[in-house]
C-alpha cells in the first residue's frame, strides 16, 4: 500500500514541478529539466506500481532490478553491443548507404536507369524483413554478415530515394550558372548539386540509423552465434530473465539515440546554410 501511495505522490510531484518549470521563461536549463523530470517520474511510478501490486518479476521487473542487472552484466551487454551494433548494424549501414549513394549518382547520370531501377527498388523495400531475414541467414551464414545483409536491404531504398530527390533539388538557374562557368558534369556535381542535396541525404541517413538497429536486432532472432542483442533478448525471454531483456532494451535505446544524435550533429555542421538549421 505504501508503494502505491509513493507512486501517486511521485506522479503529483513530478506533474506539479513540470507545470511550474514550464511557466518560467524558457532557457537551456528548463528545456533540459522538464523531460528529465518527466522521465524520472515515470520510472518512480513504475517502481511503485510493480512493488505495490506485487507484479511478478517474470512479467515486469522493477526499474531498480533492471539497474542492478545492468550493472552486473556490463560484460555481456558490451559483447552484444559489439556483435550487433558495431559488426552487424554499422557495417550494413555503411555498405547500404554507400551503395545507395553511388547508385543514386549513377541513376542521376543515366536517366534511363531511373525508370527501371526505382520501381524495382520500391518492390524490394516492400518485402517484409521477417520474411527476408531467415533467407539471408541461410545465404550468408549465422554470423554478423547476414545481419549486415539485412541492414543493407532495409537501408538501401530510403537512402536511394532521398539522394535521387536531393540531386534534383537544384533549379535550372543554378545549373545554368555553373554552365556559364564552364563547369562539366562532375564539377557541377561536386560544387553545386551535392551540397544542395545534403539536407535530403542526411534525411536518408537519419532514417537509416533507426532502420539499421531494428534490422540487426530482428535478424538475430532467426539464427545467430550465441552473442548479440537480438539473440540475448529472445533467449532471455525464454529463460524468463526479463530483467536482462530490459537491460538490453536500455542499451538499444541509448545506442539508437546516440547514433541518430551523432548523424544529426553532423548534419548541423554540413548543412549550416539551410533554413532549418538557422533556427
Amino acid at each position: 500500500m505504501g508503494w502505491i501511495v509513493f507512486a501517486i505522490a511521485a506522479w503529483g510531484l513530478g506533474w506539479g514541478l513540470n507545470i511550474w518549470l514550464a511557466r518560467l521563461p524558457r532557457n537551456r536549463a528548463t528545456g533540459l529539466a522538464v523531460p528529465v523530470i518527466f522521465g524520472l517520474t515515470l520510472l518512480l511510478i513504475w517502481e511503485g506500481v510493480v512493488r505495490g501490486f506485487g507484479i511478478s518479476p517474470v512479467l515486469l521487473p522493477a526499474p531498480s532490478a533492471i539497474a542492478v542487472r545492468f550493472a552486473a552484466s556490463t560484460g555481456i551487454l558490451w559483447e552484444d553491443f559489439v556483435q550487433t551494433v558495431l559488426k552487424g548494424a554499422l557495417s550494413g549501414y555503411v555498405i547500404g548507404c554507400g551503395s545507395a549513394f553511388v547508385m543514386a549518382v549513377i541513376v542521376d547520370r543515366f536517366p534511363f536507369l531511373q525508370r527501371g531501377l526505382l520501381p524495382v527498388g520500391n518492390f524490394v523495400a516492400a518485402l517484409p524483413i521477417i520474411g527476408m531475414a531467415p533467407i539471408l541467414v541461410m545465404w550468408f551464414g549465422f554470423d554478423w554478415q547476414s545481419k549486415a545483409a539485412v541492414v543493407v536491404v532495409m537501408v538501401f531504398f530510403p537512402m536511394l530515394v532521398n539522394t535521387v530527390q536531393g540531386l534534383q533539388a537544384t533549379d535550372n538557374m543554378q545549373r545554368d550558372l555553373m554552365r556559364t562557368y564552364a563547369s562539366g558534369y562532375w564539377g557541377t556535381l561536386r560544387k553545386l548539386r551535392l551540397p544542395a542535396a545534403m539536407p535530403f541525404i542526411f534525411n536518408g541517413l537519419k532514417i537509416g540509423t533507426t532502420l539499421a538497429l531494428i534490422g540487426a536486432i530482428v535478424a538475430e532472432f532467426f539464427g545467430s552465434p550465441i552473442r548479440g542483442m537480438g539473440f540475448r533478448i529472445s533467449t532471455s525471454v525464454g529463460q524468463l530473465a526479463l530483467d536482462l531483456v530490459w537491460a538490453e532494451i536500455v542499451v538499444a535505446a541509448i545506442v539508437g539515440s546516440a547514433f541518430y544524435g551523432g548523424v544529426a550533429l553532423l548534419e548541423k555542421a554540413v548543412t549550416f546554410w539551410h533554413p532549418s538549421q538557422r533556427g
Partner: protein
Amino acid sequence: MKTMVKTLGVAALTLWGGMAAAADEVTLQLKWVTQAQFAGYYVALDKGFYGEEGLDVTIKPGGPDIAPAQVIAGGGADVVLDWMPSALASREKGLPLVNIAQPFKSSGMMLTCRKDAGIASPADFAGKTLGVWFFGNEYPFLSWMSKLGLATDGSEGGVTVLKQGFNVDPILQGQAACVSTMTYNEYWQIIDAGLSPDDLVVFKYEDQGVATLEDGMYVLEENLNDPAFAEKMVKFVRASMKGWKYAEANPDEAAMIVLDNDASGAQTEMHQKRMMGEVAKLTAGSNGALDVADYERTVASLLSGGSDPVISKAPEGAWTHAITDKALN
C-alpha cells in the same frame, strides 16, 4: 403472481441443472507444435476420455519462441508441458511451477553429428560448431558441455554454439558439425533430407549419462492450494494417462488422431506414425507418476554445471505426488 413464481422456479431449476452439466474448463499449453509427441492428450480429447471426467479441455499448440513457462506466468494456460530443467530454472527465477505428472520416463534428446566433420566421439567436440535450441531446451546441453569441461562461450578449446531454429538446416548446409535432435523428430528430418545413418554419428543423452526428464505436466503452486483446481487436475491427469496408454497400444490410430488435430497441415502421416512409434518407447515405463529417483538424477545433473549451473541450489517443493496418487489409484 403465480405465473411469475412458476417462471422463476423453472428458470432457477434450469440454471442449476445447467451448472451441473457445465464442464470444467482446462487449458493445456503444449511444448511444441501439434505432433505425436503429444499424442496422449489428443487421443484423450478425441476419444472422449476428458469428456467422461467432465472436463472441457482446450489444447494450445506451442512452437519455436513459445516458452510454456511464460504462457503460464501470463495466465494463458492452467497446465503446461515443459521439460524439467526449464521448469526448475523458472522456479528459481520466481515462477513457482510444480510437477504434477511425468508421462515421459526416458529422454529422447540426442546430438547428431556428421562423420565427415571429423567427429567420432565426444572428445572431438572441441573447436566444432554445435547447434542447440534455446527457450528452455538448452539446459541439458549446457549441463553436458560443463561435464565434458568444454566452454560454450566461444573461447579457445571450447565449442561454438549455434542457436538452432526449428529445422535441421545447419547440419545439412555444413554450418554446424552437430545439431540437437529428438529421437522422434529432427533425426528423421535429417534422414528424410538425404543423409544416411552411415553418414551420421549419434550421441544419446541417456547413453552419455546426462539425460534429464522431459515432457512433464506443470501447474502453478498457488493454484494447487485451491481444492477445486486440484480436483480438476486429478481428473485431467487420469484422463491424459488413459490417453497415453491407449496411444502406446494403438500407435497408428493415435498418429491419425494427431494429424486430424493439426491445424497447420504441416505434418505428414509417415512422419507422425514414425514419431508415435519412437515416443511410445519414451513413455513406456511410466504410469504418469514422477519417479523420485529420476527427479534426483535430473537435479544432480543440473547442479553439476560447473561454472554455469542451470540451477544454483536443490529446489524444494518442485513436484508433488498428491495429484497422481488420487488420479492413478
